[in-house]
Each structure stands twice: as structure tokens, then as C-alpha cells.
């Protein structure tokens, strides 16, 4: 006996919808997989976007509600208008943003995703046909935390919001967490009438929003990449919760897939900084400590002409770029310097620390924008063994990632963090605006090293002056 679709109570459209979700889910996975190699990355992004587009269109055309009806024309028009509006706005923002502001933008887009998840969960909670109250409430809480947390992260990265380091925040957050869990338990365990339920859902939303704010507030700027990645995975999980409500496998797979990928990325990042996730969330970077009392030695400056001679007659030069380079918009000047030196037969490479910039891989994007070939960008572990044979290492706007205190000073807050061993090379030139401390607020003994010479000034101006000087040689 063959079973017909009618026996199953489904239409051809229902089956096609599920097939399209399967295709979309596969495209997400293939897309993200392709994105793990520079050559195929763009194609991967395209496939993932295609999967999303497909799922959106088939949902609009084929999805049937609880009463078995398709999405009506009027509802469809409202949806399409909302999507067009969102698309135009999203495209404009994405096209206009400066590459240095990328971390803020990722935070912002993550916030919108979290907000959408929280809204969907909020409305589904009052739907009598929804049988998964626990998952709905979790989606509400996680989505709201991802939203408000990401907005705070956005504000901090954009310099609009400062840090608060008050000790009470930790306890306040614990109390909020307990209230949240108690409230969820209460809402699940007792039969409440509709109005109480809805009031409690809003209360839960409010508490989760406050929790998100207070959770990100005390986290220092240097740890922001970790937080963005964490919030990113939260948004994925919130989306998966909504998928659970709708029994929608594409949403579950997409959400959890991103959630788990984000978690792994978070862990990779905390490893690169040699800190645990708990340490990032609870502790915050303090300044100074015992190390500050140590004998400093002297700072030696270098003139432009000395620097240009030194560089021109070197065989190997390694550039260690930091966020300071991007802030000064010196990537382009830097690329000019590289080309000029290469014409003179100097081998030039960039040493990229895993947490250089404001998020992992941010420095690569910034240099790629200035046309530096990605084959010139060498990761920390690969470049470190060759540094003792390097003639000159130029540190531009980087600080903590070349601080030898991470290797030999157990009292330093960054002790144990893997660094680029710039101090091992034969000569070191440090380009810096002034003697300010790095993001972590720690003294850097590299600057006092006998082999180190400082070139003070705006990185862009210094590099351009250096380029002109070398041209005249």
C-alpha cells in the first residue's frame, strides 16, 4: 500500500517548503565551510545568503498557519514592504560603514537579530497553540540579553559609553540571574491566567534587558571581541529556540550551528589572550601592579633619516600592526612603505597577533582594504621562530601584543598571553604617538629595550615621512 500525501494530511507545498528548508540548512553549512578559506570565502557568503533568501521566499509563499491557511495577500504585502525597508536600510549601513568601525557594526547587526528573536518569542508566548513554554521563555531571555548586551558593546566600541568597574555589579548580576530563573520556574509551574502571563512575560523581558546591559557594562574594551563573539552565539541560540517553537529545522540548525561556531570562536579568542571566559566576564583588566616599580632604563629615539637607512639596508623587515595603525588611517601609507622596500629587495612581512585590532582578524581586514596581499600577513606562531633572524621589526600602533612582560613577569596582568616576540629581532623601531600605555594599561618594557628606538608622532605622518626619506636615498 502506498501512502499518499493526502493520507498524511499535507499538501505538495508543505513538502516543498520542508525540502527548501533542508536545502537552506545545507547551504548555511556549505557557505560557512567555504568561508574558512580566503579563496572561496566570498562564494561561501553568497551560498549562505542564497540559502537564507530561498527559505524566506518559500516561507512567504508556502507556509501554512495553525488553521491551515497560507499567508494572505495583505499580510504578504506588509511582510514584503518590511523586508524591502529592512534590506535598503541594511545595505546602506553596510556599504557606508568604515572598515575600522566593523566591530561596532557586527555588534549592531547582532543586536537587531537578538531583538527580532525576543519579539518573536514574546508574541509566541501568548499563542495558545504554542506547546513549548520553556523554550519560548528561554528564547525571550536570551534574545533580549543578546540585544541589550550588543547595543552596549556597540556603544562602548564606538566610544559613546564608558566602562563601569564597580564591584557591586557582579552581585547585582547574580541577583538578576536568580530572579530570572525563579520567574521562569514560576511561569512554568503554575497555571496563570492570560493577563498575568503576559504581564510576567514583559517583566521577564525587562529583567533580561537590564541583565544584558549590566553584563557588558563592566567588561573592558580589550575584552570586547570576546564579548561580541559570545553575544553572537547567543543570538544564534535564541533563533534556534524560535525554530523549536515552529518545529522549523532550518532555524534550529542555522541557529545552533552559529551558536556553536560562535562559542568555539569565543574560546579560541580567550585562548589567544590566555584567559578563561569566566575571567573575562567577571574580572576586568587593572593597571600597574608590582611591575611598575621595576627599573625602566632609557627611551631612545630614532631620526627619520636613520630609520630610512636602517630599513633600506635590511634584508628582512617585519611589521607588527596594531589598532593604532588603523586609527591613524595609516594602512595605505604602510602599503606604500612595503612596496618601496620590496623594490629595494627587502623582504617585508606583517606579523598578525590573533587579537590585533578590535576583534579577531580585524587587522587582516584593515590591511586587505589597503591592498596588502593576504599572503604577506603571517600569523604569530608562524612568524615568531623567524624573528631572531629579522633585521628590523617595526611596531606600529601596537602595544600589549609585543609586551615581553607577558613572557617573563608573573606579576603582570597579561602574563601568559602569547605575544609576537618583537624583542628578539636585531633592531626594533616603535612608532607611537606618545608614551601612553596600551589598552590594558600596562607598562611595556619593549620600549626600554637596548635594541629599541622610538619614532614618535602620528603613525600616518611618520610613515609618509619615512617613505619620502627612503625615496631620496
Amino acid at each position, binding site marked *: 500500500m502506498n501512502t499518499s500525501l493526502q493520507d498524511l494530511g499535507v499538501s505538495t507545498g508543505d513538502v516543498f517548503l520542508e525540502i527548501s528548508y533542508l536545502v537552506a540548512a545545507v547551504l548555511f553549512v556549505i557557505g560557512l565551510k567555504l568561508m574558512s578559506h580566503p579563496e572561496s570565502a566570498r562564494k561561501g*557568503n553568497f551560498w549562505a545568503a542564497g540559502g537564507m533568501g530561498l527559505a524566506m521566499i518559500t516561507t512567504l509563499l508556502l507556509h501554512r498557519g495553525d488553521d491551515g491557511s497560507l499567508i494572505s495577500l495583505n499580510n504578504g504585502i506588509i511582510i514584503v514592504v518590511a523586508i524591502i525597508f529592512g534590506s535598503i536600510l541594511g545595505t546602506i549601513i553596510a556599504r557606508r560603514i568604515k572598515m575600522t568601525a566593523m566591530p561596532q557594526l557586527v555588534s549592531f547587526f547582532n543586536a537587531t537579530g537578538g531583538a*527580532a528573536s525576543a519579539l518573536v518569542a514574546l508574541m509566541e508566548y501568548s499563542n495558545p497553540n504554542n506547546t513549548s513554554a520553556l523554550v519560548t521563555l528561554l528564547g525571550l531571555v536570551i534574545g533580549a540579553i543578546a540585544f541589550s548586551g550588543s547595543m552596549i558593546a556597540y556603544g562602548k566600541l564606538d566610544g559613546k559609553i564608558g566602562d563601569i568597574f564597580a564591584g557591586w555589579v557582579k552581585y547585582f548580576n547574580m541577583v538578576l540571574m536568580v530572579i530570572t530563573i525563579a520567574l521562569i520556574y514560576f511561569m512554568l509551574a503554575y497555571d496563570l491566567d492570560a493577563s498575568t502571563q503576559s504581564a510576567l512575560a514583559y517583566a521577564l523581558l525587562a529583567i533580561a534587558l537590564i541583565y544584558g546591559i549590566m553584563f557588558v557594562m563592566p567588561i573592558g574594551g580589550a575584552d570586547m571581541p570576546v564579548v561580541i563573539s559570545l553575544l553572537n552565539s547567543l543570538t544564534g541560540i535564541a533563533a534556534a529556540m524560535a525554530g523549536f517553537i515552529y518545529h522549523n529545522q532550518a532555524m534550529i540548525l542555522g541557529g545552533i550551528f552559529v551558536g556553536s561556531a560562535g562559542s568555539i570562536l569565543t574560546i579560541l579568542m580567550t585562548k589567544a589572550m590566555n584567559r578563561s571566559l569566566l575571567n573575562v566576564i567577571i574580572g576586568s583588566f587593572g593597571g600597574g601592579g608590582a611591575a611598575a616599580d621595576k627599573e625602566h632604563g632609557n627611551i631612545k629615539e630614532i631620526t627619520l633619516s636613520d630609520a630610512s637607512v636602517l630599513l633600506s639596508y635590511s634584508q628582512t623587515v617585519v611589521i607588527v600592526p596594531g589598532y593604532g595603525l588603523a586609527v591613524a588611517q595609516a594602512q595605505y601609507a604602510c602599503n606604500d612603505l612595503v612596496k618601496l622596500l620590496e623594490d629595494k629587495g627587502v623582504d617585508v612581512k606583517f606579523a598578525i597577533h590573533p587579537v590585533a585590532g578590535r576583534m579577531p582578524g580585524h587587522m587582516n581586514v584593515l590591511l586587505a582594504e589597503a591592498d596588502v596581499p593576504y599572503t604577506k600577513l603571517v600569523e604569530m606562531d608562524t612568524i615568531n621562530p623567524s624573528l631572531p633572524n629579522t633585521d628590523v621589526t617595526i611596531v606600529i600602533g601596537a602595544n600589549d601584543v609585543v609586551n615581553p612582560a607577558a613572557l617573563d613577569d608573573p606579576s603582570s596582568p597579561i602574563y601568559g598571553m602569547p605575544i609576537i616576540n618583537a624583542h628578539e629581532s636585531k633592531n626594533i623601531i616603535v612608532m607611537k604617538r606618545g608614551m601612553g600605555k596600551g589598552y590594558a594599561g600596562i607598562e611595556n618594557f619593549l620600549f626600554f629595550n637596548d635594541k629599541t628606538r622610538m619614532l614618535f608622532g602620528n603613525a600616518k605622518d611618520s610613515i609618509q615621512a619615512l617613505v619620502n626619506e627612503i625615496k631620496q636615498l
Partner: protein
Amino acid sequence: MEDFLVYFYQNKEAIFIITLSIFLGVEVISNVPSVLHTPLMSGANAISGVIIIGGIILLGHSSLEGISLNLILGVFAVILGTLNVVGGFVVTDRMLEMFKKKKKN
């Protein structure tokens, strides 16, 4: 305890997918060079906008008789979800385009 068992059995397909997706995410990401971490985060972020499907379902089946709070929130959910998806993919493409360009040189 029995509640938990019932819950597991009723949702076993979803729980299977969730569990396997976790491993999938770990596998796919673990081998990515740090060069691509930023675009990857941004791309993954765009995929997490899959909540847009939920927004479409919700808004698609909500009543249009009068302007209800649900309708307004639904419109917001779809707009915000689209922002996440479209903005995320566009900006990721913009970043990756720069990596691609270098190949010709």
C-alpha cells in the same frame, strides 16, 4: 524525571539536530585561519538572522483587523531580522571582496 523523559521523546528530532549541529559548528570553525575571523563572525552573525523566518511566519498569520500591538511588534521583528540578514551578508561580502582583489596582483 518522567516529565523530562516525555519532553525528550516528544522533541527527539529537534534534540538530535541541536546536538549534531553543535558538533558541526565546532568542526567547521576549528580550522579557520585567523585571517578570516572577522568576516566569519560577520557571516555567522548574518546566518543567525534566520529568525527572520520566524518573523515572517508570525507576521504572515497575524490578524489584520485593526492595528494590534502584535502586528506592530511583528513588523518590527521582520524589519530587524532583515537588517541582520541583509546587512550582515552585504558587509561580509564587502570585506571578502577586498581579500579576493589581492589575488590578481
